[in-house]
């Protein structure tokens, strides 16, 4: 017969830790439950059971972590309160420091690439690919919102102090970087100049457009987080576009116009092609709204969404036309935009019908 490798102290600690990790018991509660397990195990041993058998039965009688966590959380509200504060501190640190760290990293990348390749095909390629990857990463993270939330929740529940402490790291990194002489960025002005490199220094339409794409994605991602606060399902296009609220459509309309306008940074010389690219953005938006609301009030949604764009394009466009010396670009942009919206609606409705037929 092999000697038993069972270690009672280790087993009791591990069982109590598993309950403690749920985050609703204090150290005193844990000590009391441990004492109970030792007493119960002793009493079963005195009845003739082995230490391991006695421990297993004692645990079973004590109750599993789910039951105990539920009962303890009723009497330990301060633990819940502390967790709320942990979320607040961590949230502040992450929302304040991660974007600033990201901007710092981006500006360092711009500087390095510019110093090495100046404005060339290579620098355009590196920066454009970087912008596209960043855009993809932003939307990937938004899609994984549930998983990220669950991860953060687990960290706060199991290791509150560690999580809060770690969240200070991105907060401190920029400060340390500024202290390292070769990387020293003395003031915001310099940082700002570094940030504007893609627009002014790389001298590339692709760099500029992909830059706008990444920036607007960040804003869009933040808006998605706000507007999905009451949604419980996994985030998809349907989450946002099916029966959208007016406030969402207004904000979406503004972002949409900014994105559509940023296509001008591609500097396509032929006006009709430029207006076509511009209108494609509105076509896509109109398609999405019509597809997900084929039985609802599409026209109302489309009017609210495109209102900001129509007003901006008309007002700013006419001014720009006058400045340029009586060009008629506004006519192109606004008319293409309206046609894009109408075609988007038709295409969206057709797709929705086809989709329903396939489902049947």
């Amino acid at each position, binding site marked *: 017969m092999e000697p038993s490798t069972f270690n009672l102290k280790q087993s009791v600690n591990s069982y109590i830790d598993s309950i403690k990790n749920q985050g609703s018991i204090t150290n005193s509660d844990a*000590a009391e439950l441990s004492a*109970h397990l030792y007493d*119960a195990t002793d009493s079963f041993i005195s009845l003739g059971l082995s230490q391991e058998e006695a421990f297993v039965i004692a645990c079973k009688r*004590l*109750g*599993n972590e789910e039951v*105990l966590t539920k*009962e*303890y959380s009723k009497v330990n509200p301060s633990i819940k309160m502390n967790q709320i504060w942990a979320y607040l501190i961590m949230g502040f640190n992450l929302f304040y420091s991660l974007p600033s760290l990201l901007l710092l990293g981006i500006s360092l990348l711009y500087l390095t690439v510019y110093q090495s390749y100046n404005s060339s095909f290579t620098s355009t390629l590196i920066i454009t690919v970087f912008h596209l990857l960043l855009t993809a990463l932003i939307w990937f993270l938004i899609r994984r919102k549930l998983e990220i939330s669950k991860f953060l929740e687990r960290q706060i529940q199991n290791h509150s102090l560690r999580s809060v402490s770690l969240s200070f790291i991105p907060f401190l990194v920029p400060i340390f970087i500024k202290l390292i002489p070769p990387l020293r960025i003395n003031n915001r002005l310099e940082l700002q100049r570094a940030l504007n490199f893609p627009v002014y220094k790389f001298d590339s339409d692709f760099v500029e457009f992909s830059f706008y794409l990444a920036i607007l994605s960040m804003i869009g991602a933040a808006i998605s987080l706000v507007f999905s606060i009451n949604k419980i399902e996994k985030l998809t296009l349907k989450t946002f576009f099916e029966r959208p609220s007016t406030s969402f459509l207004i904000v979406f309309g503004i972002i949409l116009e900014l994105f559509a306008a940023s296509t001008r940074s591609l500097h396509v010389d032929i006006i009709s092609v430029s207006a076509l690219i511009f209108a494609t953005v509105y076509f896509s938006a109109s398609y999405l709204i019509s597809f997900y609301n084929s039985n609802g009030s599409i026209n109302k949604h489309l009017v609210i969404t495109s209102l900001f764009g129509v007003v901006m394009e008309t007002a700013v466009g006419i001014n720009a036309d006058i400045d340029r010396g009586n060009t008629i670009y506004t006519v192109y942009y606004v008319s293409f935009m309206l046609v894009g919206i109408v075609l988007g609606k038709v295409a969206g409705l057709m797709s929705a019908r086809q989709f329903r037929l396939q489902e049947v």
Partner: protein
Amino acid sequence: MASSLAPLVLIILRRQESYGYQIIQELRDKSGGQLTVAEGTLYPVLKKMEAKGWIEGVWKKADSGRERRYYKLTSKGTQELEQQYSQLNFVNQLINSLWNLPLSTSSNL
């Protein structure tokens, strides 16, 4: 089940101070092994009773060197016990008298 433990714990602590495991054992013995509650759920009940000032807990080292939290009844707890005891007795008598009423049949209507 957990909430109905409170008056039972008060009664047990009326006689002498005790700790969680001992209280559970006494409840188990007196109920003839009928007590099916998870033993660990007694502790949140004790904690709630302590917060209400009915009992007072103190960590003590036993002869074996093991630490246990002993609970004793406070004067507020004694008052609470008397009140709950009379209430439970009242409810018990009421249940009995209602239970013993003759069953009505459709012919009585």
